[in-house]
């Protein structure tokens, strides 16, 4: 086990160095990429932020609480992007659908280790994370929240559970690309878009059937709404935290099963998307 962890850390170091090298070799392109990600992060939450400023709060949250909610959303989304966005690790259906799993199967490293490490981009992919961190710190200061070690652990737990939900969701959807490579090439992106599109909206005031759907079957409410309420002390932590734990466990289990089953199909039938001259069908 210790060997595997050491190997994983070595891979993280390698990918971090490659990411830094991109920045060192082509500063303009890399900086433009970072700036566009930052602009995208800010723009995605601007609607709810402006409404909360205009009306001194939104959907039962004060303006500062709304800022914390948006800060958590951006921080968690940024962390996910920084750890898994590179090489389409999170958008796994692209790699599966393009037949690129072949490249992974011939590497002298287990598949799970490659998937954990390949998405890491701490330099070019850190803008969302840093933006979210800044927003969270500002909102904590304005709210006067007591940041204790226990609260930080709770924050970490919320971030990890959110990451597990998104990853499980993307991989569960992405497994379908093993069977329909062309049709499902973009299905992980679509699945993730559900969360990044709706997760930033305050979800109170919804009809009960829609709220039920968005907190369980399509767990958009676990992206920021529920964690922010737990961290702000508006909900009882140990009890409420059970919901994301159960859903994350269910999604990860289902995704692991579906992905392994799909992989067995892939090993047998392959995926011939590329023509001889290198273009995809």
């Amino acid at each position, binding site marked *: 086990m210790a060997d595997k962890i050491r190997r994983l850390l070595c891979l993280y170091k390698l990918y971090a160095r490659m990411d830094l090298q991109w920045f060192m070799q082509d500063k303009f*392109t890399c900086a*433009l*990429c970072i700036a*566009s*990600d930052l*602009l*995208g992060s*800010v*723009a*995605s939450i*601007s*609607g*709810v932020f*402006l*409404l909360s*400023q*205009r*009306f001194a709060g*939104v*959907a*039962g949250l004060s303006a500062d609480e709304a800022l914390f909610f948006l800060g958590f959303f951006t921080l968690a989304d940024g962390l996910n992007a920084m750890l898994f966005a590179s090489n389409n690790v999170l958008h796994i259906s692209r790699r599966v659908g393009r037949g690129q799993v072949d490249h992974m199967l011939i590497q002298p490293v287990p598949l799970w280790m490659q998937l954990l490490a390949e998405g890491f981009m701490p330099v070019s992919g850190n803008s969302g994370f840093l933006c979210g961190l800044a927003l969270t710190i500002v909102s904590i200061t304005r709210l006067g929240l007591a940041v204790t070690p226990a609260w930080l652990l709770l924050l970490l737990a919320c971030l990890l559970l959110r990451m597990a939900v998104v990853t499980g969701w993307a991989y569960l959807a992405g497994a*379908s690309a093993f069977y*329909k490579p*062309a*049709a*499902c*090439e*973009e*299905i992980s992106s*679509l699945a993730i*878009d*559900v969360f990044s*599109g*709706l997760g930033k*909206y*305050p*979800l*109170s*005031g*919804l*009809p009960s059937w*829609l709220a039920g759907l*968005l907190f369980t079957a*399509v767990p*958009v409410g676990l992206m920021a709404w529920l964690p922010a309420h737990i961290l702000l002390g508006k909900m009882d932590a140990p009890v409420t935290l059970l919901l994301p734990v159960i859903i994350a466990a269910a999604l990860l289990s289902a995704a692991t099963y579906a992905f392994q089953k799909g992989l067995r199909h892939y090993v047998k039938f392959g995926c011939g998307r590329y023509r001889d001259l*290198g*273009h*995809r069908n």
Partner: protein
Amino acid sequence: MQRTIATARMCVREQGYFGLAELVGGYLLRVLNLLALLAIWRALLAQGADMEGLTRDQALTYTLLSAVLHPMLNIATPASGWMHDGTMLGLYQRPASIFGQLAAHTVGGWVTQLLLFSFPVTAIAAMAGIRVIPASGWFLLSLPLAVSQGFAVDFLFTCALIRLKSQEWTMHRIRAALSALLTGAVIPFRALPWGLGDWLALSPFGTLAGAPLALYAGLDSAGRLLAAQVFWNIILWPLALVWFKRSRERMVSYGG
């Protein structure tokens, strides 16, 4: 005209290439997005927020129309993607103008959206009590002006993409961010804080979505909005044509 219609028809068929799951999944996401936004407006208005004259009906109509007319208020030709994958080069081998082919392809893409999303959602919204009749007839003039201006803005972004050596993702992010922030597609300008709406309403981005939606919902007078739209069309189209002419020699494509 026959060539344009044939191109548009090809695009309609192309919408179904990746299967029903991909097609319907995208529209379901939009429905959920719309429901969440409508719920926010209902909650805001229920808590008695001062909207400076923006009524509940107007806010809901504005939000509904923004979703229903999304492709027309946020014109996105396939130019950037085609430049990246090399399809753009094929357009030069056809006996039709580049702009014409891109426009036909874009308009063809609206058909599926109108049939599978816009008409059903509008009908359901009307049955749910949301007003779907335009408050001002000037909307019918404002929408084509917004579409025309949208094409000019899209071609300007295409030129910027050529200058940035086809960094498609970067340009896509910048463009999406500017659209979300400045076009008024998400929030009516009247609901923005710090007087931002007054500045944005007449800007080249603000008139893209904000102008037709404001006229449809009855939020603004037609005179100044239409004048601003005509002005930006006159300014942006020559700019787009000249810049494209100067940029096309620098076009780079990766293929694959």
